[in-house]
């Protein structure tokens, strides 16, 4: 047996030694080349300060040596005395191992480098990153498989065709999503918008950016609706960024609206005595109606500082002096309807003590006591900070403004308007709260009042921004 082996070796020593030497030579050369090459690359990456350099080196250093070994093995087999069949078989096997290793290395390399870059796009959601990386992985695996099949002599043309068709179908089917993904990357790259930015779209809709996903942007509007906008649409529309996040209130401000209907009491006065007698006893709702009616019905006009009592005394009784005295009762001075009523009664009584009943109103011009019946409804609008507050204030109806300024202060016995209470208690903006609280709302039209409050809030925000 040993003779047979010795004989075989002595007959084939050259056939064994040469491939072995070739293989060893490849190992030695590979080690040398790898050292030189990677030393050079380290130098280049160090000079260029490319952060991906380290990743590239760490990922490819070992596989590079493996590829050299595979090449050495392949060359050794080619110079060996093996039959062409085995040379071809081993060549394909080594080729396949090489392709597998190369594909795997490229995939790892791309994944690490993409992670490095995509993470910088803070606005880009992790789902988008995963989608992009997995897409590329699949593409490289497909390419690797095709090359391997080609290596084993299997025709890849039909497969290539099939893959191409499938790819085109997939692109066509998911064109919007693909567009959204690329738009998402662009949004993240340019950093044009971030979560919690307050934006206004070309369409007029506005709100806070609540979420940015791989294909959509979510905007929370002041009326608590969520607008979901595809990234591709968002990138094509004109967007105004009104501001970055502000201090959040401890409790949000819910806007309410107030509607009213008039209820007749059936009571009417023909002269001052009857007026004052009835005025003393009627519900607060009646006094409230007759001191606020003008604001609601004539909200578009320069306000008349007059209550209905003053107008009636002036117009129907022709008593201009008392009319002026009643008009001069400043509703803003009073924090309760009871106190306001007392003042009105005192003014009329003072006049009665001098003039007694005075004139009678002509028939049909009697003073009818009417009651204001309020229905208070919540709106969809909720403010969490000053910017939302001011933007909502621009949008709400005048009924809403009226409710929070007039009704809350006097009729609901809060003593001060709702806005000031919230600004002070929930936002800690005492100075702004005080500025609004001291505004005499009775000297503005409702639109004028709205503008005034908006101005005060905006000025305050500008000042805070400058300081901050």
């Amino acid at each position, binding site marked *: 047996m040993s003779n047979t082996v010795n004989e075989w070796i002595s007959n084939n020593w050259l056939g064994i030694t040469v491939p072995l030497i070739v293989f060893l030579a490849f190992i030695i050369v590979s080690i040398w080349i790898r050292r030189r090459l990677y030393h050079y690359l380290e130098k280049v990456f160090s000079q260029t300060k490319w952060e991906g350099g380290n990743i590239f080196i760490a990922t490819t250093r070992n596989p590079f040596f493996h590829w050299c070994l595979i090449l050495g093995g392949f060359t050794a087999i080619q110079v060996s005395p093996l039959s062409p069949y085995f040379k071809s078989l081993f060549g394909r096997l080594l080729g396949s191992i090489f392709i597998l290793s190369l594909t795997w290395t490229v995939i790892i390399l791309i994944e690490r480098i993409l992670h490095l870059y995509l993470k910088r796009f803070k606005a880009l959601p992790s789902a988008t990153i995963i989608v992009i990386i997995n897409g590329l992985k699949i593409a490289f695996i497909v390419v690797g498989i095709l090359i391997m099949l080609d290596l084993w002599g299997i025709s890849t043309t039909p497969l290539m065709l099939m893959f191409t068709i499938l790819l085109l179908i997939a692109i066509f089917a998911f064109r919007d999503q693909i567009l959204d993904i690329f738009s998402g990357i662009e949004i993240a790259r340019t950093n044009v918008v971030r979560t919690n930015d307050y934006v206004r779209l070309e369409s007029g809709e506005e709100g806070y950016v609540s979420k940015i996903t791989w294909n959509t942007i979510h905007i929370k509007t002041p009326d608590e609706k969520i607008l979901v906008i595809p990234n591709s649409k968002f990138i094509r529309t004109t967007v105004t960024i009104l501001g970055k996040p502000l201090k959040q209130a401890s409790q949000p401000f819910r806007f309410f609206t107030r*509607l009213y209907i008039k*209820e007749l009491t059936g009571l009417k006065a023909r002269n001052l005595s009857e007026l004052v007698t009835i005025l003393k006893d009627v519900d*607060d709702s009646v006094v409230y109606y007759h001191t606020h009616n003008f604001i609601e019905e004539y909200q*578009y006009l320069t306000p008349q500082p007059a209550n209905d009592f003053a107008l009636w005394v002036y117009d129907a009784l022709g008593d201009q002096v008392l009319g002026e005295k009643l008009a001069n009762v400043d509703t803003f001075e009073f924090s309760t309807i009871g106190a306001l009523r007392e003042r009105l009664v005192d003014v009329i009584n003072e006049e009665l003590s001098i003039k007694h009943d005075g004139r009678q109103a002509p028939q049909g011009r009697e003073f009818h006591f009417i009651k204001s*019946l309020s*229905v208070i409804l919540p709106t969809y609008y909720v403010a969490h900070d000053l910017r939302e507050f001011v933007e909502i204030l621009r949008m709400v109806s005048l*009924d809403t403004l009226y409710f929070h300024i007039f009704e809350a202060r006097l009729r609901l016995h809060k003593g001060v308007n709702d806005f000031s209470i919230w600004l002070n208690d929930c936002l800690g903006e005492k100075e702004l709260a005080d500025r609004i609280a001291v505004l005499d709302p009775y000297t503005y039209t409702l639109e004028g009042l709205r503008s005034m409050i908006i101005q005060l809030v905006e000025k305050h925000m500008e000042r805070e921004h400058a300081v901050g």
Partner: protein
Amino acid sequence: MQLDKEIYHHSKAKLQDYVPLVGRGTIEALNALAGRLSGKVIQNINSTYTGGGVAEILTRMTPLLNQLGVDARWTTIKGDDRFFSVTKKFHNALHGKIESISSEDFSLFLEVSRKNIEELQFNGDIIFVHDPQPVVLISKRHEIGEKWLWRCHIDVSNPDEKVWEFIQNYVVQYDATVFSAPNFTRRLPNRQFLIHPSIDPLSDKNRELPQEIIDSVLNKYGLDKEKPMIIQISRFDYLKDPLGVIDAFEMVRKNIPCQLVLAGGTATDDPESDKVLEEAKERASGNPDIHILLIPPESDIEINALQRSATIIMQKSIKEGFGLTVTEALWKGKPVVASAVGGIQLQIKNRFTGLLCHSIDGAAYALRLLLSNPEYARWLGKNGQEHVRQNFLITRHLKDYLMLFISLYHPQDVIYL
């Protein structure tokens, strides 16, 4: 006697069509209120589907309430000519006119009402009865319960006491009553709401018109487009004082070139109206600047066009109900000169939304003031239009009705929903 089918829908304007006129907030508020009436059926009951102000209001309001998601229905009572001749007498008597009403008339009224009670299907959670004709239906209340409302569209401040007492026996049984103006009421033990009438800004009488239509109407009646035009649109009736209008115009025309248009119809049930028309024509004869136009009924677009081409619109009534013609005039953005009577005073705050007058001299003075001060006239017109937008459009009327229905379930003065 047969029951009329209920009308649920009417092909009129959509609620969204009002947004450009009243703002989105108003429509949102209506929707919010309507949501609170979910599941409730509102059954309107009156005497006719066509003709008259009540039918016109219900024709417009019912479909709009339906659009808001409120199940509003409309039913009419039935009666023969004899019944309606009695109700006409009642109507006049409640207005203060002296009418001869016999005990047979009352018996007939009650008999027909009883038949209606037997045959009508009461399917509303809120039964909304309009005007005196169906007032007796309240007798059904003890059987079916529910909420009952009586809407009085007429002025009952100075009625024939006998008729009022008869009607009042039924009125007091309702949960609440609704009147159009404070002056129209009587003191009642039940709740009384004040809901002013309204105009529909999208109706032919009030909608915007193309200039070509306005011009064609002016051409049709031979009116001078270049000359300032004072116009009064009213039926020919002494109570509308057309002769007073001519006198005031004559005073003004001495110094300011202008033309006067008195346009209107004659009332078929008023024998005096032809006489008034003749007198007006006679007073105007020989004056080419006075145009007396007899306009047929259903000429809403023509009336609209005339109002929109006017420089000043007048309503010099001696007595007036609510005066919706004034509302229509104000809506056109024109300065209005009107008498300080009836509901006109609710619409015109003197010197702010128009000018009120108490005499022919006062009217002439107001006309001169406006013709000589076009800027002031424009300001008044703009204010007047805004006043109507805020207070006298159909959307406000809808809001009032919705709140009225809601308030039946909430007795307090401040209702949180």
